[in-house]
């Protein structure tokens, strides 16, 4: 569908010093997929999106949509943005204030050069698009009289009217309030699945990315650091950056005595004692290997309490604090290492038994949930 390879774009600031951008991004989209570029601000995700849109000219790389080259630095191809047949929703929505709702949505049909539509067709398509986003009743309203959420919908409708091959969404929900954001995110996903349009979604919000995406490319400092389905990204992070950026996590460093094969479980010597870890990729024997455990994968019980089904790894510690969050409780536990020092562990679990701060507790977690940060 869309393939991006070797995409390189570096910004040069006014005084000539090289700045941020994107330094060699490769990925390919499948038909009908919702693909997310996720990363902190300045990671190059928006630059990547703008390069695909044609709003930014990369210095190197190749962008292909279907069978058509949109950009190829070597072949000197650069299709102008108005010929790319890509719909886009801007972060600021860019709803033209001098046009009505109808005029905004009809614009792509009126200005396109490839297809000419009769005014009846334009009216029908606009009506369809507006109905689709639930703005049918607002069709003749001046666009300045729309609320933020409505402007968002209009921006979506406008991007859809031309039935583009690819839909680009640049942090489309970031200007909405939290409740509306969650609502719109579900709606957006539904809309994308119903229409079957392939979409690239840019966001810095990891929970949004996890909820909405078919696949996620996590970006950092101009590079894609991990690409995969949401579950894979969450459960099998391959770097500290991804582990920390997506959700909350506990990080431990340890030494590997003998090499481990890809997909195997091996024992890591850590200051907290030996831990059985899952290795997504092969690793040579070395020190300083990082492993992560998600807080919700850890069980907690009062020291000496009866043992239920438990994971391979076990740690003793003292409960420092608890935060009651309704359906779950968040515990902070000081795990004791051999020298008597502590390492804070975060545990998230349904409220199970009466334990309180100061209690001695035992933590346990499965080896397959103890992930060594090794690329597969």
């Amino acid at each position: 569908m869309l393939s991006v390879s070797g995409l390189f774009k570096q910004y040069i600031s006014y005084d000539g010093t090289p700045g941020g951008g994107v330094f060699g991004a490769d990925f390919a989209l499948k038909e009908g997929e919702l693909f997310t570029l996720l990363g902190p601000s300045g990671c190059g995700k928006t630059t990547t999106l703008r390069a695909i849109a044609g709003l930014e000219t990369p210095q190197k790389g190749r962008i292909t949509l279907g069978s058509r080259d949109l950009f190829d630095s070597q072949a000197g191809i650069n299709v102008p943005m108005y010929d790319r047949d890509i719909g886009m929703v801007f972060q600021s929505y860019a709803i033209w204030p001098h046009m009505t709702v109808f005029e905004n949505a009809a614009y792509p049909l009126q200005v396109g050069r490839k297809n000419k539509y009769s005014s009846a067709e334009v009216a029908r398509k606009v009506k369809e698009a507006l109905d689709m986003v639930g703005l049918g009743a607002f069709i003749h309203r001046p666009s300045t009289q729309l609320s933020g959420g409505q402007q968002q919908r209009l921006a979506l409708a406008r991007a859809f009217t031309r039935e583009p091959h690819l839909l680009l969404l640049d942090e489309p929900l970031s200007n909405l309030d939290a409740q509306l954001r969650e609502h719109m995110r579900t709606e957006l996903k539904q809309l994308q699945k119903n229409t079957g349009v392939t979409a690239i979604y840019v966001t810095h919000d990891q929970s949004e990315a996890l909820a909405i995406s078919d696949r996620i490319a996590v970006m950092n400092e101009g590079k894609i650091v991990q690409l995969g389905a949401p579950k894979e990204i969450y459960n099998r992070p391959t770097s500290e950056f991804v582990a920390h950026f997506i959700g909350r996590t506990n990080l431990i460093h340890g030494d590997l005595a003998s090499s481990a094969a890809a997909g195997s479980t091996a024992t890591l010597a850590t200051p907290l004692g030996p831990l059985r870890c899952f290795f997504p990729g092969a690793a040579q024997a070395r020190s300083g290997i990082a492993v992560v455990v998600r807080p919700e994968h850890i069980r907690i019980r009062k020291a000496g309490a009866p043992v239920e089904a438990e994971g391979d790894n076990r740690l003793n510690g003292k409960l420092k604090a608890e935060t009651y969050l309704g359906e779950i409780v968040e515990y902070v536990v000081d795990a004791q290492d051999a020298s008597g020092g502590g390492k804070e562990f975060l545990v998230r679990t349904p409220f199970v038994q009466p334990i309180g701060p100061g209690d001695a507790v035992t933590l346990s977690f499965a080896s397959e949930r103890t992930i060594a940060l090794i690329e597969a």
Partner: protein
Amino acid sequence: MTTRPEVWDGSAAPMRMSVARRFGVSPLVGILIAVLLVFLVPPTIYLVQTSLFTTNFDGSFDQFTFRFYLELFTNPRFFNNLVNASIYAVGSAAVALTLGVLQAWIVERTNTPLRHYVFLISIVSLGIPSVLYTVSFLLILGKAGPLNLLLMELTGSTTPLLNVYSMWGMVIIEGIDFAPLTFLLLSSVFRSNDASFEEASMMSGAGIAQTFRHITLRLATPGIMALLILIFIRAFESFETPALVGRPGNVNVLTTEIYQSIQSTTPPNYGQAGAFSMALMLIVILLLVWYNRLSRHAEKYQTITGKGFRPRVMDLGKWRFLTAGLLVLLFIIMIGLPVGIVVYASFLPYYEGVTAKSFTQFTLANYAQVFNSQSFKSSIGNTLILGAATASLVCPFTALCAWLAARRHRGAWILDQLATMPLIFPAIVMGVAFLNVFLHMPFAFYGSLLSVILASMVRYLPYGMRYSYAGVLQVHRELEEASALSGARQATTFLRVVVPLITPALITCWLFVFLLSVKAVAAQILLVGPKSQVIAVTLFDLWENGQVTELAAMGVTWMSLMTVVSTIFYLIARRYGLSIR
């Protein structure tokens, strides 16, 4: 009112006034209004009196009469002048606006090479006195000018084909003369557009031309319309071009008729001048009413917001070389040719058109004469003081007025109206009005440099006001509201939020008022005395005396000086502009 769920209306919710302010104007607004009235009331009263009284030889008023108004309707010249002035104003506004929009778009919204130089060049060209600019075009387009010589060569005609002393000559010259200013005013309008409006259009499949027509131009329309009216008014009351171009060809407009009633009639027909002025003012007032109606949609201007503002430019691809070529062509027409011919003329012993023979006669005699003249040196000094003082008084004052007015402080609309009021005075009439005010002062004031500065300040208040207003309008109210909610008083908000945000506009305002005030003739020609000679008036006198080569040498010297001043200022402004972006 129908219920509108989650409707956000940008124009709603004006700031709530404090209780004290509901019962009248705030003290600050009151003081500013008083200051303005002191400067505006005396000349107005004088003007009205002139049109309603017969005037004695010593300038005092005699008998009350409506005669001068009745004569307007019986005088065929009045209607003729009116028609001429309208054609001239529409034509030159169209020329200036076309050139200005084209340049502003290319410079502010595209990636055309060389585009940054247009700003510098426009500022430099503002430093060319109107008289000199008009003269240079008369030399180019005149009977012995290179264009006519070329056309005669091509067609084999033995007589010049083009007569510049005509309506089209006036329209072209005034239009081109006003184009740099139009560009400078428009560039801020175009600059403030959020680029994602255009990007959204390009993503919708629109090409560059379509995007320009449907989005860029439409979003800038309120700004362009306001500017159009401003140029139109300015052309209506312009004096230099009609006096130097139209008058010899017997194409008279209202301003030249007024000038003639006073200068070329013995005894001066003050009454007729007064009645003509009042008629001219009525027209201008009607235009201003229209202008105010337009600017009520001010919310449309509010384009700098706190989020997602990206001043990006459009990639024209290969077309950018075409637009670059266009910029170069405009530069040649607007600056290259006029400056070239003046420089050329400045080296000649006497002027007789562009001929091969004349190149062998080059001499520095004109420059020697200019540099040895004490009066020229003092003329330069006076002009610089005049410009700097006018700009330094006008800009901070209008910035404060504009902000108060834009934020709808109680009574501040009066400030807006008053500061814009000088626009209704044709410059030449304002000169006459102030001349009389100064003559009637109890102490010797007429002819002093201070008197010229005061008149100049009043004259350029509206221009400063427009520039400040545009700057203030572009600051989204939320940015100030955020400051207020952070606990800042209004004065603090003004100094900490508004002033920094409109500083680039203020810098441009200063430069713009400075250059305008030193290039004008009409407002000053009747006010200067032997000790307050200024450049523009000196040049005007030289042309009237037929001293073309001395005029050219003097003009070149002045232009060089202004170029240095403008360039320094441009560099400062650019540096400042960049640091806050």
